[in-house]
């Protein structure tokens, strides 16, 4: 357990007088991977992160008991996490007029926790406007990889070639065969746990040992086998056998991974700093600049090419210029779109890389909320077992619109779920009454529940987009993002089907359905926003080519989820990293040939 080493974020001094080979904006999964690949190819890289420099290791108290924390893991007074009903009854900017000292977005089980208060942005400083949207942003080294759910899935040609399959939307300019070698590289570098299933629509990774299932999960898995469906152990971006990385340990199944003090202090769970950035710093080729809020990609007036990035120091409020031969934008799907749109020049009047007018458009994600809760009768009253010593429970891959054709909607959804004993008996909230009977009932039922919720593909549509608000600005005077985004009938029909199919599967497994949730969560809830600068072969209808390179500006790359052509229904982090690796390998080759 003391195998891992800590590294300070200190690298080479930032030297803004020099021109770096590449500047990378953003240090999450995409930016971290860009930094990792480019520095390994010998390029001198400057990495800009808008977040403050915090000692994440000091924030991580992974094995702390709730009762050893003064507020049982909750944030101090004056810190407010926006609630579901607030997102729905109010309009952004949600923190406007709030009496709270700090306002944060919801974020899964970590909403309002002490852990996220130093990771998520303060909505008071970072407003946005337009249609309702739960926009979760992390400004800190590593970005959202500090809080991600760790479900690490591949896409297949059902996704990359979705249009060919069902006629909707656009195909990606790449196929699974193009990406598969890079998925393999990501698997081997970072470690992924899972069980081989040989499913064409959810390709297997190069798995390390899988997490195990609980009794209820086994029951569901067996029943689904009879239906031609699968409940597979949570495919986690967590190394269970270890990787060659001195900053990371293998997972010891300590469990309660989502607990409110938060995080994985041995970094068995992938995060960008220990997985990618610290090893990149060890090459001597990476320079890190935190507190650096990029607000414009600068353009050479003669060539129209990118020449660097202008950023504001979030603390001293001064503006600086980072000069580079290549600019790589990896600020997250929505922040990247914002940065491109902010970068207006004579050559690029609609924002850099936006001759197509598609930047900000085709914005998509995963719709979530609907799900089912069941009870396994034979588990009532059984002795407690260690059921949550793992990063997640199970995953039911997509089963709709593969061979069949649903009448109400195109594309599909998967379920994430879990079952068994956990550190907190959630069923207590719904157990009626009080006294000895209440207490015994909570105890007896604590391990008997199973639940799962759907994650569905939101169709990429041109009409769903973001642009810059003409008036609203953030704390640093940078124009805020404005949302024009809502779910369509396809998503609503799909969500109805999630509930029906969830019940059907539990019933098939002999699991009593005790609850169904039909409520679609606010747009943005999945924190899987994608597709604002999509790839494509046609520069008129896409922003990037198959190497995430701008059609308009050849030394500009956008390597995060912005580039995705469709959302698929699989969680995107592993694909983001595989694509960034592929593109940056191409980038380094082109750079060496002098083609950028």
């Amino acid at each position, binding site marked *: 357990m003391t195998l891992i080493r800590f590294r300070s974020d200190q690298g080479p001094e930032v030297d803004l007088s020099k021109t770096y080979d590449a500047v990378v904006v953003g240090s999450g999964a995409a930016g971290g991977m860009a930094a990792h690949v480019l520095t390994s190819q010998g390029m001198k890289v400057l990495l800009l992160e808008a977040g403050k420099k915090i000692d994440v290791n000091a924030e991580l108290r992974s094995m702390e008991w*709730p*009762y050893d924390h003064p*507020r*049982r893991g909750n944030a101090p007074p004056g810190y407010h996490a926006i609630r579901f009903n607030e997102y729905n009854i109010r309009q952004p900017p949600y923190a406007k007029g709030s009496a709270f000292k700090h306002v944060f977005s919801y974020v899964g089980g970590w909403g309002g926790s002490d852990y996220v208060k130093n990771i998520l942005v303060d909505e008071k400083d970072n407003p946005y406007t337009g249609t309702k949207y739960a926009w979760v942003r992390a400004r800190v080294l590593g970005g959202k990889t500090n809080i991600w759910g760790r479900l690490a899935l591949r896409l297949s040609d059902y996704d990359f070639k979705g249009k060919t399959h069902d006629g909707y939307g656009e195909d990606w300019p790449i196929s699974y065969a193009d990406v598969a070698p890079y998925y393999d590289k990501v698997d081997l570098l970072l470690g992924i746990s899972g069980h081989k299933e040989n499913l064409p629509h959810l390709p297997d990774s190069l798995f390390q040992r899988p997490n195990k299932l609980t009794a209820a999960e086994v029951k569901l898995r067996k029943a689904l086998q009879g239906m031609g469906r699968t409940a597979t152990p949570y495919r986690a971006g967590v190394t269970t056998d270890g990787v060659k990385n001195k900053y990371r340990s293998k997972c010891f199944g300590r469990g309660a991974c989502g607990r409110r003090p938060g995080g994985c202090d041995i970094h068995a769970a992938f995060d960008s700093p220990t997985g990618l950035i610290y090893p990149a710093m060890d090459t001597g080729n990476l320079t890190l600049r935190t507190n650096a809020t990029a607000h414009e990609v600068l353009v050479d007036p003669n060539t129209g090419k990118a020449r660097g990035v202008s950023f504001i120091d979030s603390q001293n409020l001064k503006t600086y210029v980072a000069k580079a031969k290549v600019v790589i934008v990896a600020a997250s799907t929505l922040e990247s779109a914002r940065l491109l749109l902010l970068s207006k020049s004579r050559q690029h009047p609609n924002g850099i890389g936006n001759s197509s007018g598609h930047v900000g458009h085709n914005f998509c994600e995963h719709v979530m909320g609907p799900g089912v809760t069941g009870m396994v009768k034979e588990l009532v009253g059984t002795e407690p077992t*260690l059921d949550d010593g793992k990063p997640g429970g199970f995953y039911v891959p997509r089963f709709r619109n593969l061979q069949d054709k649903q009448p109400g909607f195109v594309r599909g959804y998967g379920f994430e779920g879990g079952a068994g004993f956990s550190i907190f008996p959630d069923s207590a909230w719904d157990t009626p009454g*009080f006294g000895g009977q209440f207490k015994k009932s909570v105890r007896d039922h604590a391990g008997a529940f199973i639940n799962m919720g759907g994650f569905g593909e939101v169709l990429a549509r041109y009409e769903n987009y973001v642009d810059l608000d003409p008036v609203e600005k953030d704390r640093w005077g940078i124009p805020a993002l404005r949302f024009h985004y809502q779910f369509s009938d396809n998503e609503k029909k799909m969500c109805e089907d999630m509930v029906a199919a969830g019940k059907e599967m539990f019933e098939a497994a002999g699991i009593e359905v005790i609850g169904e949730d039909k409520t679609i969560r606010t747009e943005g809830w999945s924190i899987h926003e994608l597709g604002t600068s999509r790839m494509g072969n046609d520069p008129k209808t896409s922003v990037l080519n198959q190497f995430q390179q701008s059609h308009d500006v050849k030394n500009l790359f956008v390597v995060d989820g912005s580039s995705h052509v469709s959302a698929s229904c699989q969680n995107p982090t592993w694909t983001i990293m595989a694509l960034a690796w592929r593109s940056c390998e191409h980038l380094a080759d082109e750079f060496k040939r002098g083609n950028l």
Partner: protein
Amino acid sequence: MTISRREMLQRTAAAAAAASLPLANVVPSPGSQAPKPKFFTPAEFALVDEMSDMIIPTDGESAGARAAGVAAYIDGRLAEAFEKDEPQRWRAGIAAIEALSREMNGGKTFMQASAEQRLALLTRIAAAESDAKSDAEKFFKQIKGSTIQAYYTSKIGIQDDQHYKGNVIQPGDYAGYDAT
């Protein structure tokens, strides 16, 4: 090592019995060693302490909300609450309980009433749990929610009552079943 449910029951029953001894007198007497509440008045604290322990009492398995310090935890959070309407809701809810107690029990406060009378009051407001209307009924939901949160995050709740098995290092095989 596995311990059977029966063994655990016996052990914790003994522990719970021992733990509950010094707390036999539930109303803090003047000069008692109990720390002064930070938000509640002593009378309010006594009511919250008693009602939380009626919601999650000591049983054969584990000690209840009183031993787990539920009232003190709630008191601490309310004392530092940023939203001042939250502590005020508690104060108003307690006042509603006292008013109901006086009405039901010939002018006696909740703590002055007999154990049977307190139980009758709690049973009455809990009956409306799924559709709480009066202030007293709403208070039941409020104190029950806070009691659940505080109790099941306490050491007694996690270790003695739930016998939570996680937060341990599994150096070898992970617990659970293989996917086959």
